[in-house]
């Protein structure tokens, strides 16, 4: 029948029309914008509300805090052009730049910082990062304000005059200038925010910034965010880019194709692609500082009331140390995770902070020598197991290892499972319990776990961001749930824990010199390692590809997101 031929012709023709009409230019970064890959949506542009790295990263191009990090990671003034601290190290005075303006022309004032600090700890506002104010910076009166005992006006912050901002603390804070880099302490133009009502931060019209870039395209949970150079920025002549474009791409394959196709200048790649790209000159490893570790639940009367024998077994030091030495951390990082992550034979991640003499924390204390008896060693691990078995009168153990449902975490857990099996010749087994991340955290917070693969990322560039976790306040496992990262070791080793608490307190109350304080924090790490309070696994790093002609992006491991204000594209 002729009709069929005609139909076929129509079909082919229409297909051809579609494809030819689509024949256009091949995408390419020809303009003066950097196209950045992010793999999750921005959850909030409100600095006092956001809690995730992606949001922080975009915010920090739009708003600047009192201080920031320069390209070498040293603190420099941003909105603050200078500062001083009182004799007793309790009162900090910041002088705000005269030439700092919001994008609507308002000057950035001390009051903007007063509003920001008050909002952060205001129980009505209920910021998830309120603890940065009351527990980390320990602003005077912050606990009372947060607990609703005092009005937020009682907080120890004030605008001395339009450009002078003063913060009073409960205790001296040696890392104050590192803290003020953090997004939670970014200024707020409250008048503008109030005028937007509940639409604040949902579109370029209802957002205000004071940073090197300004928002031009944004809507909630959008896939593309466009930022243009901000001409009212005090350092605008130094900003060489016309702007930035963020692209939310969740599929790793799509992202890499987009990068190859020049639609992205900077792409984050995951472990499955590292093998292919690791010899590419554009391949870079960026130090992240998430420490992944096994948290062991040593249980206590509060949680299990003695009903779970496994958590009782985990109170045995020899058993914990046996576990600690039973898995090959180098293999986890290099063969399992494979994204540039490194083995962690320590607690404080590489790149976290520098010692008073300028050396990185991991050069100051070389884990391989100082914690030699904590390293992976199958024979030693088996000996420790034998000792533990004799002490406990039990020869076979079977623990439940809770792990979240992302591929990487599951791969790591499965690998560790295999290593335990091999090292202990089948006497110590773990079975995996896979849950969503939220469910894992709920279980671990309720003390409802035996061993958990978990992580902690730093909030500021000081070892204390980790040290603090295992002070008895945080270390306990209660059935009403507090942080469980210490697994209740304070109950297992009360004397040692009390000693640890004293060291932590001494680091916070200003009684130690900088060097003494640093060394005390190093002693604390030693206690954690030698007592196998946690079992470190690896330090998560990010592998990425950056186009060769894109220069001057400043990456920082800690607290401060990637900085683009000095970046440029080489022509």
């Amino acid at each position: 029948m002729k009709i069929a031929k005609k139909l076929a012709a129509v079909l082919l023709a229409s297909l051809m029309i579609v494809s030819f009409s689509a024949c256009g230019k091949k995408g390419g970064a020809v303009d003066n914008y950097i196209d950045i890959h992010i793999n999750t949506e921005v959850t909030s542009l409100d600095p006092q509300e956001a809690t995730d790295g992606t949001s922080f990263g975009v915010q920090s191009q739009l708003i600047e805090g009192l201080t920031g990090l320069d390209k070498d990671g040293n603190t420099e003034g941003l909105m603050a052009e200078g500062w001083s601290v009182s004799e007793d190290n309790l009162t900090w005075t910041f002088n705000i730049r005269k030439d700092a303006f919001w994008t609507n022309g308002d000057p950035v004032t001390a009051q903007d910082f007063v509003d920001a600090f008050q909002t952060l700890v205001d129980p009505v506002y209920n910021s998830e990062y309120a603890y940065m104010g009351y527990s980390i910076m320990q602003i005077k009166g912050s606990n009372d304000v947060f607990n609703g005992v005092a009005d937020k006006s009682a907080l120890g912050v004030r605008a001395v005059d339009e450009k002078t901002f003063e913060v009073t603390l409960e205790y001296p804070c040696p890392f104050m200038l590192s803290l003020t880099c953090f997004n939670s302490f970014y200024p707020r133009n409250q008048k503008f925010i109030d005028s937007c009502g509940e639409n604040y931060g949902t579109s370029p019209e209802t957002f205000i910034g004071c940073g090197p870039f300004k928002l031009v395209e944004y809507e909630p949970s959008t896939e593309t965010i466009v930022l243009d150079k901000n001409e009212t920025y005090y350092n605008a002549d130094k900003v060489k880019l016309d702007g930035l474009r963020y692209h939310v791409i969740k599929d790793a394959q799509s992202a890499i194709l987009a990068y190859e196709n020049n639609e992205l200048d900077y792409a984050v790649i995951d472990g499955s692609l590292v093998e292919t790209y690791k010899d590419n000159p554009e391949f870079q490893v960026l130090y992240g500082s998430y420490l992944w570790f096994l948290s062991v639940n040593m249980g206590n009367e509060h949680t299990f009331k003695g009903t779970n024998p496994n958590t009782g077994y985990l109170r045995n030091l020899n058993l914990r140390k046996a576990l600690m030495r039973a898995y090959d951390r180098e293999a986890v990082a290099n063969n399992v995770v494979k994204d540039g992550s490194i083995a962690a034979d320590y607690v404080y991640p590489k790149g976290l902070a520098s010692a008073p003499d300028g050396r990185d924390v991991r050069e100051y204390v070389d884990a391989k020598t100082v914690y030699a008896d904590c390293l992976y060693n199958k024979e030693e691990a088996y000996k420790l197991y034998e000792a533990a078995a004799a002490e406990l009168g039990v020869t076979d153990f079977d623990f439940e290892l809770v792990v979240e449902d992302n591929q990487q975490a599951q791969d790591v857990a499965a690998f560790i499972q295999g290593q335990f099996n091999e090292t202990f010749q089948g006497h110590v087994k773990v079975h995996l319990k896979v849950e969503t991340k939220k469910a894992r955290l709920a279980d671990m917070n309720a003390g409802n776990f035996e061993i958990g693969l978990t992580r902690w990322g730093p909030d500021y560039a000081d070892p204390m961001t980790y040290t603090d976790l295992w002070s008895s306040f945080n270390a306990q496992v209660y059935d009403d749930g507090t942080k469980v990262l210490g697994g209740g070791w304070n109950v297992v080793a009360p004397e040692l824990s009390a000693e640890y608490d004293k060291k932590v307190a001494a680091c916070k109350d200003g009684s130690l010199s900088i060097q003494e304080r640093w060394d005390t924090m190093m002693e604390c790490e030693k206690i954690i390692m030698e007592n196998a309070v946690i079992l470190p696994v690896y330090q998560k790093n990010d592998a990425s590809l950056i186009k060769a002609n894109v220069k001057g992006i400043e990456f920082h491991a800690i607290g401060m997101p990637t900085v683009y204000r000095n970046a440029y594209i080489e022509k």
Partner: protein
Amino acid sequence: MKKYIAERLGTAFVTILVIIFVLFAMMQFMPGSPFNDEKLSRELIEKLNEKYGLNQPLYVQFFKYVKNVAKFDFGISYVINKNISINLMLKTRVPTSMRIGLQAVSVGAVIGLLLGIIAALKHNTFWDNLTTVISVLGVSVPSYVFALLMLYTFAYRLGWFPLLYTKTEPFRSSLLPTFALSMFTIASIARFTRTEMLEVLDSDYMLLVESKGISGPALIFRHALRNALIPIVTVLGPLVVGLMTGSLVVEKIFSIPGMGALMTAAIQANDYNVTIAMTYIYSVMYIIIMLVVDLLYGVIDPRIRLAKEDSGE
């Protein structure tokens, strides 16, 4: 007929009520809460629960929820876009997904029909075999595989299309996802059309029509296709629904800011309100489509309508 329509509407309404209830119950059973994070302290979690009314008795939460959901007021997001109204988040996502979905259905239906007709008319020739191959591939290969293949071939290798969805070129950048999504529809429709057409073409009345001297397009479209269409309409409904689920993955691959992408993100983040909103919207869409198909049945094929009325259904 009126009774039939009333009955269908009634069933749809009851189904929606059941869905609302099941959704609420499921969210209660879901492990974890939106406020679990390494960094949150107990006091903060309590305060957050209080802020969002999650500490109120279940029945209070339930009635509040039913009232709001019925009004399509889904409240605010807890996690994905903190404190931002879900309706605002959906404002651009729903049209984007709808548009791509409609494009995929149209492309799928048209190409599928054409392929099916060609195959039937050219029974046991190259064209027929080609259609069979396309059908088998389209039905058995999941849409995300097509998505990746097309992405690689047409966007990356040939550079004809943008790799990722962009709002500056909403049509051009939605073509690849449209085709990826429509493959299953094309395959199913082609298969059905072919079978139905063959059956119709073989029937006695076609012989009669042909003997009356009618030929060409009139024969095919007015007489053969019309009769073949009835069963095809019935599969179109479920296919449209199939597109919705396909879009969950395809939207992720092409970075399309649509409903599917939002739903997957919401489930992973335990964002109760967003998950409920998305599930509810998908369910309502499903129910509406099935309702329309049911009603169309009656309109297109009097036999069904009459049979149903006879049997008192």
